[in-house]
């Protein structure tokens, strides 16, 4: 398990105590079940109070936890017969984005997503899921292919943002993202996006233009990382907490603002605590949305998608 977050520490300590007591009881052949049950109830209620009242900053931290399920976990646990496809056919195979074809409950679909690694070595190979232009171009290639064969598309969003640096600038990072936005808006197949962790700015949006945006309960989707926002506006990255609150970017905020269509509940304590429950919840949500969208004819689908994208934004006059 990843390092517990500051606000999780009382819970982690309590859970350690319970484990200790259990092994002590076993070792000494004592019946401490009453005490253990009391403590377990206490842990559950502590868990409820912690995870039921998370601040935007705490949610940011949970969304970034390295032991949350990543793209490959979802692929493995939600789909069957996954065949991974590689490369943008022009420059490279950017492993910050992965994708391929698979069955979802018997329906062939194209899956694409930001791929965070499980350890440092894998993260370096995948550039911490911060894609270069060729990553977005690979994603677009796979989505065009889905369009051709009439396969629905499911995208998984989990990045702190598109890679920023000389190599990205040289190869047209802006254009690569923009191209995905314009082309995704016209794909003739259903497109469902799921924010599974961090939704980092344009680098996230480049896989997120579609018919439905689902967000796991403890995720966020932001115009800029809270640290960067604080650094730029208040010249103090330490004010990230304030920036996180101010930007209203949690799944719950975005549901209210009409950007997120549905929140997928996570098990108590977060998706990393119980992969099976997370998958079950997401699988249900995906199937329901897919059934709805597959019932629409292409014109309807595209008009509804345009209306959904078109309506975002509040102004006066």
């Amino acid at each position, binding site marked *: 398990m990843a390092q517990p977050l500051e606000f999780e520490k009382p819970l982690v300590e309590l859970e350690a105590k319970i484990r200790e007591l259990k092994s002590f009881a076993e070792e000494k052949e004592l019946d401490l079940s009453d005490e253990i049950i009391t403590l377990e109830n206490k842990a559950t209620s502590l868990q409820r109070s912690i995870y039921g009242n998370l601040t935007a900053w705490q949610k940011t931290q949970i969304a970034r936890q390295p032991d949350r399920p990543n793209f490959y976990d979802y692929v493995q646990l939600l789909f069957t017969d996954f065949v991974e496809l590689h490369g943008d056919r022009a420059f490279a195979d950017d492993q910050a984005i992965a994708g391929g074809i698979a069955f979802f409950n018997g329906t062939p679909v194209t899956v694409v997503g930001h791929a965070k690694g499980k350890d440092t070595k894998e993260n370096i190979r995948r550039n911490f899921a911060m894609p270069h232009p060729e990553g977005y171009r690979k994603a677009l290639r796979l989505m065009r292919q889905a369009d051709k064969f009439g396969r629905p598309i499911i995208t998984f969003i989990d990045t702190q943002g598109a890679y920023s640096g000389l190599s990205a600038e040289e190869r047209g990072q*802006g254009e690569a993202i923009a191209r995905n*936005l314009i082309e995704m808006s016209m794909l003739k197949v259903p497109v469902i996006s799921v924010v599974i962790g961090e939704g980092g700015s344009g680098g996230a949006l480049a896989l997120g233009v579609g018919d439905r945006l689902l967000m796991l309960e403890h995720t966020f989707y932001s115009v800029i990382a809270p640290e*960067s926002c604080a650094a730029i506006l208040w010249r103090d990255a330490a004010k990230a907490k304030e920036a996180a609150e101010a930007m209203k970017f949690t799944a719950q905020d975005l549901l209210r*603002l009409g950007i997120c269509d549905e929140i997928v509940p996570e098990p108590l304590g977060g998706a990393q605590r119980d992969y099976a429950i997370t998958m079950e919840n997401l699988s249900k949500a995906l199937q329901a949305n897919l059934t709805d969208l597959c019932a629409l004819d292409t014109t309807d689908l595209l008009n509804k998608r345009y209306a959904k994208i078109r309506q975002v*934004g509040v102004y006066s006059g």
Partner: protein
Amino acid sequence: MLKDLFRKPKYVTVSPTAPKKDMPDGLWVKCSGCGEILYNKELTKNLKVCQKCGTHLRMTARERIEATLDDFVEYDADLSSVNTLNFPDYEDKLAKAQAATGLQEGILTGEGIINGLSLVVGVMDSYFMMGSMGAVIGEKITRAVERAIAKKLPLILFATSGGARMQEGTLALMQMAKTSAALARLSAAGLLYISVLTDPTFGGVTASFASLGDIVIAEPGALIGFAGPRVLQQTMHQELPPGAQTAKFNLEHGIIDMVVERGQMKSMLAKLMRLHQGGC
């Protein structure tokens, strides 16, 4: 010692006491390229291009419309931003930007004429909160695109922006999708869209409508890129080599079609529009 004679004397750098003035409201303006003090009236007559070194200084949206269009009727002049998220100090910043620029928001859109050719046009203004894109800019561009489709007119957008507006959070981010989706429909209608990138164009604007022109033009010396210098420093602790993200850099890397001097911009736009009329 003899060696001391060749040693460079050490000077202390004294920063100027007055803040750097680059708002074009004074009588005199200092060229950001060569430092020459220029008479503002002359400079404006020369389309804000330094007579001495050729640096293309930034223009306000109104100056650019004046310099590029023969006629202009504004759309949606009354749209203005609201602080939907209750973001700290946002109203204050908006009020200051409005007072300083005389604009409601960081873009003017409308219908215009260049050398007898009608078009729909949008011009961003970097003096309004660095041209950052919030819901109003997204909506004004989207409406302009939709009008171009309805009237079957070509569209030209002059971009200048630091990116999406942080004070509007994810709502600002989504304007990237909104403007791009509108442009998809323009493209499907077979209409021409020319994107002109001016100094500076970054972030969410580069990563959406500004990069989606059938033809993408930049002004000489304009800085254009995805990650702005400040973001690069803050997030990646990186600095790009000199010359990166200039118009020339973007041309050399195949990211834009051409670099056009301001004095030639109007005739180039007219020529491109004529080249997109007819065919067999």
